């Protein structure tokens, strides 16, 4: 079993009681330095209970809206403050996290202070919330014109009847109109406590210096114990109510997405499931698979075709997706092919795909950004990059067989297509 140390890497980690967690990945020789501050709060967190026992439900898109509004500051807009240092700042919201980040060459410590400051001190206003709505509306409209986003969005709505993962991260035109200042304030209070924030730093930095710097920032800003909000899960009916959805759009080439909900998903902290899923899909539908080869030669798919396993705390699904001249035929051929592939694979296929995954893991370290997505996400499941590397090497044929049998059940299959007008 190889470790990060065998790759010449070490991820430094420290947690302050009732406060921030920090991870540092030194990248000696890199010019850029990078930091992100990630809140364990994403688009699926729509239902929760406050410590007094009250239940709260907020409109879809609230985490993403809050992300936009954290950049508001009446004194000096946050982006301007980063820009003055030559730091490039951004943010993104996913199903389960909201992440604020910057990269820079000079002025790293000043930029780090801005990052730690603005995420922990909200300044949004009622007026600002209303002014943001047309901007978010344009962002959503941009997505409405994307066939790729549409085909996956429609698929998720078939796969999940009630679970909030069925909604787009940005919400809908309607749900965004319903978002209020109070919603944002409530969510900020519930989920932006420093104990629910994780700082990630990468670049040519001295870890001891980073720890010292962050320790001082933590000492200045102690907020006391976590407020104790609790997420409420949304039970979802096991069977999809409908099997297929089709939408017409202004496009030239149709798109197909074939999806399977993983009804036996053990939960986000089970890394083995995730990796078994990824490797199994590479084996069954990757460039080196019989299925890919056959469908390509039949003219049903091209290089846009890909299979992926998306999973989170209490939800998981598999998608096979690509452009195709004939979505109906591709849907049929895919189902046949997947059924046949469930058992028709060999240990040697898995070895090959594992080797490729190990190579990709090594390449991860050449990017400041790629581990920055992974590390905070793992953190919120109580896992680290070391766990990730260990499990990657351990995934065996049993785990892969289990994934294939449980997560790709033919009776769970649903299809979403987008076709030209």
């Amino acid at each position, binding site marked *: 079993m190889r470790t990060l140390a065998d790759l010449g890497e070490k991820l430094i980690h420290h947690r302050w009681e009732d406060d921030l967690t920090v991870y540092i990945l030194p990248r000696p020789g890199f010019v850029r330095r990078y930091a992100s501050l990630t809140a364990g709060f994403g688009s699926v967190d729509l239902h929760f209970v406050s410590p007094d026992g009250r239940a709260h439900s907020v409109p879809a898109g609230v985490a993403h809206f809050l992300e936009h509004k954290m950049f508001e500051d009446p004194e000096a807009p946050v982006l301007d403050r980063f820009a003055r240092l030559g730091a490039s700042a951004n943010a993104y919201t996913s199903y389960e996290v909201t992440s604020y980040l910057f990269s820079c060459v*000079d002025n790293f410590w000043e930029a780090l202070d801005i990052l730690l400051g603005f995420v922990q001190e909200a300044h949004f206003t009622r007026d600002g919330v209303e002014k943001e709505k047309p901007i978010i509306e344009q962002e959503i409209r941009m997505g409405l014109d994307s066939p790729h986003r549409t085909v996956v969005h429609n698929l998720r709505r078939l796969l999940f009847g009630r679970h909030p993962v069925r909604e787009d991260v940005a919400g809908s035109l309607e749900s965004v109109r319903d978002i209020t200042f109070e919603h944002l304030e409530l969510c900020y209070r519930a989920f932006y406590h420093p104990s629910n924030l994780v700082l990630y730093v990468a670049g040519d930095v001295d870890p001891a210096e980073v720890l010292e710097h962050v320790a001082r920032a933590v000492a200045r800003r102690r907020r006391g114990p976590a407020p104790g909000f609790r997420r409420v899960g949304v039970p979802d009916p096991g069977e999809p109510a409908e099997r297929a959805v089709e939408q017409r759009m202004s496009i030239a080439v149709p798109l197909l997405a074939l999806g399977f909900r993983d009804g036996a998903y053990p939960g986000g902290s089970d890394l083995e499931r995730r990796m078994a899923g990824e490797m199994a899909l590479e084996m069954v539908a990757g460039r080196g698979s019989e299925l890919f080869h056959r469908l390509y030669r039949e003219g049903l798919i091209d290089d846009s075709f890909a299979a992926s396993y998306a999973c989170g705390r209490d939800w998981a699904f598999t998608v096979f997706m690509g452009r195709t001249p004939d979505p109906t035929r591709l849907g049929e051929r895919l189902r046949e092919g997947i059924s046949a592939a469930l058992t028709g694979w060999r240990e040697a296929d898995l070895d090959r795909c594992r080797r490729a995954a190990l190579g990709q893991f090594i*390449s991860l370290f*050449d990017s400041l950004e790629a581990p920055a997505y992974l590390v905070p996400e793992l953190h919120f499941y109580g896992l680290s990059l070391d766990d990730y590397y260990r499990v990657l090497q351990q995934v065996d044929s049993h785990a892969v067989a289990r994934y294939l049998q449980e997560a790709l059940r033919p009776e769970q299959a649903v299809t979403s297509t987008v076709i030209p007008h």
Partner: protein
Amino acid sequence: MGTDGDMGKAAERFVSREVGPGARIHYFHAPRFKDLSLSVAWRVNLERETVTRVALVPSVLRRGTRSFPTARDLARRCEELYGCRISSRVYRLGEQQVWWVGLDFPHPRYVEGSGYLEGVLGLLGELLWQPVTEDGGFRSDYVAEEREVLRRALRARFNNKASWANLRCVEEMCAGERYALHPLGREEDLADIDPRTLYASYREILAHGHLDVVAVGDWQALAAGGAADPSGAGVAEILRPLLPRTAGGAHGPGPDGPGGQHPGERRPGPLAPVEVKAARAEVREVVEHQPVSQSRLVVGLRTTVTMGHDLFPALLFLDGLLGRYAHSRLFVNVREKAGLAYYANTMLDPVKGIVLMVAGIEAKAFQKARDTSLEQLYALGRGEIGDGEWEATYRSLRAEVASWSDDPDGLAWGLLEGLTVGRDFAPAELVAAVDHVTREQVAEVARRLQPDTVYFLTGEGATAT
């Protein structure tokens, strides 16, 4: 401030060597990377008669080599080699078309097993030089299949509205120039392509294309001289087997295969210089309708200041003030102040001297967004540049240029851009050049950047003006 102030890696730059007619090897030594990266770029002129065939060649080559005769065999071989990634695509660079083969793989020191490096380089060599052939041409089934895949890719450009709007604006603005040709070619040419003519095109590229092999990473550790040799000679020796015989390599000069040519025949022809034109006297507006939810505005501008020009650093500066960053004028004025857009930014082609100002807006905001965008440019031309935006752009630009050293693909592409215009900018030199840009120069470059074509893609029935 500890380690702050380490601006760029001053000592780092490409070491280039001519290795034969129209063939060069470039090496950028960067031991911080865990991957080794290699790009093999063949440049030919963009021509209406050949553009589609040149676009199709890389697709057919990806289908198989002599030892790995199917795409599935190739993919499996890559997986065995720790998932080494080989890509093969075409791009546009000024008036030239580039066939770009990229290879990234973990450094041998991080993986187990012998023969790994030889395996990876051998695979790349086969992909370039030893395609599967039959009857004096490519395999006919592969050609037929890839023709359809390319047809679909050409049509699918319409699926992405933002890039479609950009493409249409450039087509309108540069009509009649080579640059207006899309690097993927034209659908109407596909029917006439057969396995023999396509194979002839492939050999034509190998015989007359300009070849640049670009290596980034810690290749030196693998060279015979090891770390002691800073000249890159040892690295060139590792890569030489990939080259044509005329450059001391093992292949060609035409490809191995039917009707192989004799050594010494490789003669790269002259490459078309970049055609730099002034904007048309009267701005043209083109409005097109599709049932879209968001309208797309593209303002196409031209300048005669390109990468080869002394004022180029000032053009970068101007682009930064105008629309490159989140503090830039387009984002601030079109999105944040006027709330007209979700995105509003510029896209600069430094080789051609074209800037696109792009925004995703509501249909009714067309005039306001267009006028607001142009007004930002004109204000900069009048020298109305605030201290805050100047400082932010200066720092952001320096950081961005210095950061290129962290991105192997970006480094290789930047090198190729420089070769196209005949001017080599090391990141560190460009950082230094940015230091000397003055407000007067930026204002002058702003005045020399002029609107040519306004393109607007909007919903059915919506009126634009």
